[in-house]
């Protein structure tokens, strides 16, 4: 372009971060190549497969997550814990890159503790969220991936913040993060009320994660359930996701399940039949498209 030629401006060759970016404070970054390229060339294929959710209601904040850590198509750990305690009244659900989440949560724990010592009281959940967001914003463009929901109880009651490493910081009532989040939102949005009882909230959270693990390939393992009350956080339960889903199906389906050899198509269709039954269709009727596959048929 004309102006470029006049000014003799040349586009930089490398895709690396400009020297104007702040140095990765405190962390050693390999010289010569920038983190993005380094990870692309040498790093493992990081996937962001998970289902975590959190919602606040009258009696506190519920945090639930699956426990599958995946690395591409490989399940690195089927029983990891994706809910990290920060202090007695603050939990964080983590999604994105596990290493980034773990590191930044340690940093957050340290910062909050220092502030507690300096100021004499723990910062509120909103401050913790802002702190985390501000710390991560210095690394904009360096491919950090931390998508987290901070669940806590502070002076203003139960609070929930969603913080993402691109700088997003949102307060809300319901958040679900990860590849399984659309499925979880579907179940959560239909069952959520601020005035739920604690047992209803536990059931809703477990149900949402179980349905998400059923549909999402990158979520599975078990379902972790945490509850932040006024007195602090509590690990309520860890239940196997498949078992939980089967139990949820049994709750809907009064008749015993047929023919255990049809493992996969069966639960889906009976589940849908049960749902239709609840709405308007009579028992035994199936809506079109719900065709049950007989044993001998093979479809490509």
């Amino acid at each position, binding site marked *: 372009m004309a102006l470029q030629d006049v000014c003799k401006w040349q586009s930089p060759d490398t895709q690396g*971060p*400009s020297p*104007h*970016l702040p140095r990765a404070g405190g962390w050693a970054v390999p010289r010569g190549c920038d983190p993005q390229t380094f990870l692309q060339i040498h790093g493992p294929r990081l996937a962001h497969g998970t289902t975590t959710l959190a919602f606040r209601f009258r009696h506190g904040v519920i945090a639930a997550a699956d426990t599958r850590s995946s690395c591409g198509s490989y399940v690195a750990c089927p029983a990891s814990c994706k809910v990290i305690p920060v202090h007695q009244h603050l939990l964080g659900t983590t999604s994105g890159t596990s290493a980034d989440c773990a590191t930044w949560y340690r940093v957050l724990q340290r910062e909050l503790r220092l502030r507690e010592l300096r100021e004499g009281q723990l910062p509120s959940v909103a401050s913790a969220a802002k702190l985390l*967001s501000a710390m991560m*914003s210095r690394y*904009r*463009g360096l491919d950090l991936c931390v998508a987290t929901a901070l669940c806590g109880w502070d002076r203003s009651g139960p609070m929930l913040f*969603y913080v*993402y*490493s*691109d*700088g*997003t*910081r*949102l307060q*809300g009532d319901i*958040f679900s993060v990860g590849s399984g*989040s*659309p499925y979880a*939102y579907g179940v959560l949005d239909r069952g959520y009320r601020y005035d739920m009882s604690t047992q209803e909230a536990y059931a809703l959270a477990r149900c949402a994660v179980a349905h998400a693990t059923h549909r999402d390939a990158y979520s599975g393992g078990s379902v972790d359930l945490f509850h932040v009350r006024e007195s602090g956080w509590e690990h309520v339960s860890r239940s196997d996701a498949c078992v939980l889903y089967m139990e949820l199906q049994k709750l809907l389906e009064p008749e015993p399940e047929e023919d255990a050899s049809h493992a996969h198509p069966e639960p889906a269709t009976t589940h849908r039949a049960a749902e239709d039954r609840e709405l308007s269709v009579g028992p035994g009727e199936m809506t079109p498209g719900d065709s049950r596959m007989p044993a001998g048929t093979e479809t490509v």
Partner: protein
Amino acid sequence: MDTLIGIKGKDFIVLGADSYCINSIIKLRNDDNTKFYDINGKKCLLLGGSVGDRTQFGEYIRKNIHLYQYQNSTDMYVKSFAFYTRKQLAYYLRRNPYEVNCLIAGHDNQSGYQLYWCDYLSNMDAVNKGAHGYGGYLANAILDKYYHENITLEEALLTFKKCFEELKKRFLLTQISYELRIMYDDKIETQYVTV
């Protein structure tokens, strides 16, 4: 994609934006009120774009305007505010770009009510009416048709309503919930509109 619309009259400015906070295909919030950054009760920065970028950029600009005020014991003029915002966008454009579109509005004693349209590439111009986003495509023609030099506040609000109804009718995404900032009489009022 955020829809931002602004109309400036002789003695008022109305800014409007949809109240959805989106991340890929999911609406994180249906009542998002973090697109507007009110500064000192006389200036307003309306941002649209990805949530992280607009949060970071909006806070950054707002705090710097406050810093100017404390350092110099006087408010920035709207023109300076707009030029400062544009300059910052331009500075980061080739370093660490912020993908935000802005509408900058305010009132000062020097030049009255002013509205500036600034896009993510830091193109900026002083305008009487402007819109950003996919919704802005639909709204621009309506603004062109119904705006006139002596437009009143009521007419402007009606024009906004026309824009919102058009978006409801023709825009792919369902955007029925909007937030307005109305600046007149030295104050800024917030209104929520559902179409």
